[in-house]
């Protein structure tokens, strides 16, 4: 019942394309809103982020995601709402988060996607460790939107 949302390593564009294609049979959909998180090569001191390594508290993440989905389906007129988050190492330039909201009309898809991203950043038990080009690393701290 509680869906797996995790993918080992980066999320590739072909996977995103397949997800989009699978919605062409749902002809009640008029709008898709997709959010993709991409690992940024941030400069920190005199080194640069080369990758982020993600870990999670899996059982809690599933039940939290289940609750967020229920809440957003209740609030918005949605057809589908999918989330995929990477675990393990994702290099700078690669995709680590894929949120995909579909609805008959654009407002619901757009709002649900944005709210899901906020919930993920604030309430999903996932931690990123930034790995730098010089071999060092530190725990990532999310900035407010």
């Amino acid at each position: 019942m509680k869906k797996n949302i995790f993918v080992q390593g980066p999320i590739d564009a072909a996977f995103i394309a397949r997800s989009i294609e699978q919605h062409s049979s749902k002809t009640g959909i008029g709008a898709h809103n997709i959010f993709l998180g991409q690992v940024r090569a941030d400069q920190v001191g005199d080194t640069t982020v080369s990758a982020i390594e993600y870990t999670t508290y899996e059982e809690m993440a599933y039940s939290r995601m289940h609750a967020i989905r229920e809440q957003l389906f209740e609030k918005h007129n949605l057809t589908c709402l999918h989330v995929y988050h990477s675990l393990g190492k994702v290099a700078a330039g690669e995709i680590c988060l894929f949120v995909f909201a579909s609805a008959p009309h654009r407002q619901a898809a757009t709002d649900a996607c944005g709210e899901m991203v906020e919930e993920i950043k604030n309430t999903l038990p996932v931690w990123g460790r930034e790995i730098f080009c010089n071999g060092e690393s530190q725990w990532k701290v999310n900035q407010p939107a």
Partner: protein
Amino acid sequence: MAIEIVAFGKISEVTGTGLQAEGPDTTEALQQWLHNRYPALQQMRYCIAVNQQIVNSHIPLPDGAQVALLPPFSGG
């Protein structure tokens, strides 16, 4: 009264990822036990989940509970 403790992110560097506590029967007692054992925790931001639910005030711990120590999330 056995409590399973799991820790994540920055917190796990202090406590390790998994440990057991025999005595504490409330989250308050458990936190006291943790802070005695790992003084560095007292300076760190984290919240506590009991059986995957975040607790915002102290509660009794059911026997066999899984307690998680969660530093600020940084997913996405």
